[in-house]
């Protein structure tokens, strides 16, 4: 066989008007504010960075222990500790703004008005490229998850955020609902530009010797390889139900899992827990997707996204 120098595959994707150089982002809560990992994972190589969840006022989060490793996964209950939207803008945006990486700010609130206010505050802040609306955190007592498991509440949060920002918005869905397609459609109708899924799955670990829950919060959210096949099915169903781009999250720890999401119909993916084990994993995934596209003679992401063969 003669080798011809095929042009390198184009990994660029557009998510709600936001152009990403490749479809690989790092997930909220697992990459801090970028500064923490920048020495070992050049931020400019990422498709985008999604920062830790931001609320209107600073939040102290849960008591400790907050995280435990289980076979194939992690269960966390950090409790959305963050410096509040003003603290975030002052402490972290000067650093992020100077990096050539799209910044997606993950936002949350205990009431719908809080989501709306955080969104309004971030609109127009230089360097903020999009908002990921967390309606699915399993780790706070009120709000959060409640919005993500009730159709009307999910739509109401998204509509309120939509009314307060010109930025692209991508609600982040909870996995533990009976009909994911209905949620994806509800947020699309409420004005979402894309939809991200999944957040961690509600979970609990018990220390049998002490008969106490391991996490101070009693329960938390399961992430990592253990949830990946669950996420693939939900992404597949969501992608078939909506016109807006879907972002696949859950258990990506190498190129194969990312490719599964893309083939299932996701336009981009996020890497969460795997950053902890290999801080440079995102680079490996980007390289692996490009390799795959070369091997399968694909020139653009359009050839790959939603390319599932179902008999």
């Amino acid at each position, binding site marked *: 066989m003669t080798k011809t120098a095929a042009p390198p595959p184009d990994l660029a994707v557009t998510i709600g008007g936001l152009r990403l150089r490749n479809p690989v982002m790092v997930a909220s*809560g*697992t*990459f*801090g504010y970028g500064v*923490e*990992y920048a*020495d*070992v994972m050049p931020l400019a190589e990422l498709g985008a960075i999604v920062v*830790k969840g931001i609320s209107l006022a600073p939040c*102290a*989060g849960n008591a*400790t*222990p*907050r*995280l*435990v*490793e289980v*076979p*194939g*996964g*992690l269960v*966390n209950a*950090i409790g959305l*500790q963050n410096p509040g939207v003003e603290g975030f803008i002052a402490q972290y945006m000067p650093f992020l703004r100077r990096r050539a990486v799209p910044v997606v700010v993950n936002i949350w609130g205990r009431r719908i008005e809080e989501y709306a206010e955080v969104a309004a505050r971030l609109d127009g802040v230089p360097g903020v490229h999009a908002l990921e609306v967390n309606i699915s955190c399993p780790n706070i007592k009120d709000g959060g998850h409640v919005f993500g498991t009730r159709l009307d509440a999910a739509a109401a949060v998204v509509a309120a955020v939509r009314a307060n920002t010109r930025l692209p918005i991508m609600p982040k869905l909870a996995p533990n609902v009976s009909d994911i397609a209905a949620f994806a459609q509800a947020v699309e109708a409420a004005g979402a530009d894309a939809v991200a899924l999944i957040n961690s799955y509600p979970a609990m670990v018990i220390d049998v010797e002490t008969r106490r829950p391991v996490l101070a919060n009693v329960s938390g959210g399961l992430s*990592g*390889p253990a949830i990946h096949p669950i996420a693939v099915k939900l992404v597949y169903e969501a992608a078939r139900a909506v016109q807006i781009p879907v972002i696949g999250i859950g258990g990506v720890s190498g190129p194969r899992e990312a490719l599964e999401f893309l083939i299932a119909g996701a336009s981009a993916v996020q890497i969460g*827990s*795997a*950053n*902890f*084990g*290999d*801080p*440079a994993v995102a680079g490996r995934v980007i390289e692996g997707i490009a390799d795959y596209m070369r091997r399968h003679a694909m020139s653009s992401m359009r050839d790959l996204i939603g390319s599932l063969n179902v008999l």
Partner: protein
Amino acid sequence: MQLETSTVMEHELAGGDYRLLTLASQRIADAVLPGQFVSLGLAAPADAILRRPFSVCDAGAGRLTILYKPVGRGTRAMLALRAGDSLSLLGPLGHGFPMPPSDAAQPPLLPVLVAGGYGVAPLYLLARRYPRRGLLFVGGATGRDILMTSAFAALGWEVHVATEDGSLGEHGRVTTPLDTWLAACEVDAKHDFFACGPTGLLHAVAQRAAAGGQRAWVSLDRHMGCGVGACLACVQRLNNDGEKVWGRVCKDGPVFDAARIVWE
């Protein structure tokens, strides 16, 4: 902070169940400061998600040594590491012990090290680099938990040992010989404490430092996620001018001024 693929150079028994693992590391070994740690990315167990954090016990000339005890699935899998095996090394991580400038006009205060278990590890690197020799108080459940004392003695440090079963050194906790020594000190004697070990030990040192108007630097051990300050799993309550704040043990620590810690 750097990410390296490093190679096992030596892996040997250090006494009791503890092992000394020496890794080839060009950039991290030369950059690490006493009290900083590294995290190891292990190939086994295959389903482990997290890296494992270890204090750096010795470093220099392209070599880095950790002292570890097999306690769970990750550290037990480490027992199988052989010379030539490779593993992923991330570091140096965190903030270590404050080191007096080597060109200071006055010699630093007498350093008093207090260790339990693997706590001797970061203190050994400190002892090797500190501009003044001092004392080491080390405690453990049995003589099998007392490690590296001859290495400290070889550096010219005065070593005091206590074991809870009396099998080595004084019978009791490390505070037994420490209190005897403190009681014999001049009333206005000044020294600095450096401690690493179980929380109870660190708290005991902090109390003695506070009572004597001395400073104590303690190295905390918390379950970690990322080890670099990104996930907020490892937080510890700190006093910040009367206000209680969270500090990240991996990034703001693991070494803290004991007076800042909210002991719970």
